[in-house]
């Protein structure tokens, strides 16, 4: 079993009072809680902080933790032989046990009996996982594999951390930020309690061409200046395959050309739209012939793109 220094994780001395521990936890929870934090690795960091606090805030657990001794973080150690009494059981094995599982086992030990000695049902733990899907999986639906390290409780309520692999078929229409619930696929309930559920947070992987908002897609459409002026037809990629888009003459930069129902499908029917955002781009290098043509255009054109500056400039002078 690897040692974790819960005091160091919370940034407090071993002699810290309950109030100091609570205060340190609150500061770190504010910083790392996944519901409020944008810090990198916030969720993992919060789990570590919460695990330390759950142990140190409980006088019984804290005393048991202190009894383990002091080691370097990550150092292998074995709890003292008489440590099993904290669980009210004999023959308990510490093999393959994470330190957090050890203290979670208090939960199991306590769950085995209420004050009246009666076993009470305990609902299984809910699991949460993030399912990263590609745009193609969002469009067509697809399978994702998820590996979760989860505690599983035996009949006595003792926890063992096991890696469970889940294979989920994500239906088409899933998009960024959506949540799915899979009933009964969380942790096992105890004493007749219901099994927990599995919650999936959908995260759409960035696509090199398409940007997604809801079920709508946005795509940059670069046009040469003469294509924007004269109009053209361009072959446009869409999730369902290439389509021809007619660009009308006099199309402006930043104009949105809408292709209805060419976005992502919605879970209960219908589709989002695809928007091509026009960009008028100019060549970075031009030949002498092209330069001559541009000069000829400049001399012959009456177009003034800054006509609206004129009044302001006349005031300033």
């Amino acid at each position, binding site marked *: 079993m690897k040692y974790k220094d819960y005091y160091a994780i919370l940034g407090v001395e071993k002699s810290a009072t309950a109030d100091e521990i609570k205060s340190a936890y609150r500061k770190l929870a504010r910083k790392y809680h996944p519901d409020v934090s944008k810090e990198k690795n916030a969720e993992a960091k919060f789990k570590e902080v919460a695990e330390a606090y759950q142990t140190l805030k409980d006088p019984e657990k804290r005393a048991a933790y202190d009894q383990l001794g002091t080691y370097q973080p990550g150092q292998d150690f074995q709890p003292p032989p008489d440590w099993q009494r904290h669980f009210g059981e004999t023959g308990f094995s510490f093999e393959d046990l994470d330190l957090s599982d050890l203290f979670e086992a208090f939960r199991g030990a306590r769950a085995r009996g209420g004050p009246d000695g009666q076993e009470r049902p305990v*609902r299984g733990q*809910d699991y949460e996982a993030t399912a990263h899907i590609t745009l193609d999986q969002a469009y067509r639906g697809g399978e994702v594999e998820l590996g979760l390290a989860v505690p599983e409780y035996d009949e006595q309520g003792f926890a063992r951390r096991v890696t469970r692999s889940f294979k989920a078929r994500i239906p088409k229409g899933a998009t960024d930020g959506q949540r799915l619930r899979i009933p009964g696929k969380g942790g096992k309930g105890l004493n007749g309690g219901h099994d927990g559920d599995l919650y999936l947070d959908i995260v759409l992987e960035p696509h090199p061409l398409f940007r997604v908002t809801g079920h709508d897609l946005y795509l940059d459409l670069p046009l040469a200046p003469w294509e924007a002026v004269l109009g053209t037809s361009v072959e446009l990629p869409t999730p369902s395959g290439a389509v021809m888009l007619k660009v009308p003459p006099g199309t402006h930069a930043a104009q949105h050309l809408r292709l209805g129902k060419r976005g992502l499908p919605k*879970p209960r029917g219908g589709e989002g739209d695809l928007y091509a*955002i026009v960009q008028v*781009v100019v060549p970075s290098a031009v030949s002498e012939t092209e330069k001559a043509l541009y000069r000829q255009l400049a001399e012959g054109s009456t177009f003034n793109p800054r006509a609206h500056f004129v009044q302001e400039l006349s005031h300033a002078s």
Partner: protein
Amino acid sequence: MRVELGELTWLDEHGELTLAELSEVSGLSEAELTELEDCGAIAPVDPAAATRTFHAQCIVVARTALRLRHDFELDDRGLTVALALIDRVRELESELRALQARLPRIG
């Protein structure tokens, strides 16, 4: 061990649950859910109905409330403010993502 997952439920405005079901799924008591309803964090589909039902997306709110109450040891007023602020942040993040999607990447 590999588990094949079967029935998936979208947590959106289409599925509905009773108060008791929402309590079972979220881990909050019916009284706590009623407090969330009173502060406007969740709303029944039809407030006038004899048996109140809630959209499935209320599960997300209720579970967030449970986490916040547990992790920050919040009282009802603190929880209400935190939920409202988180909801506002989510809304602004969503608007920001939508605006960023509309911004061209080249040019």
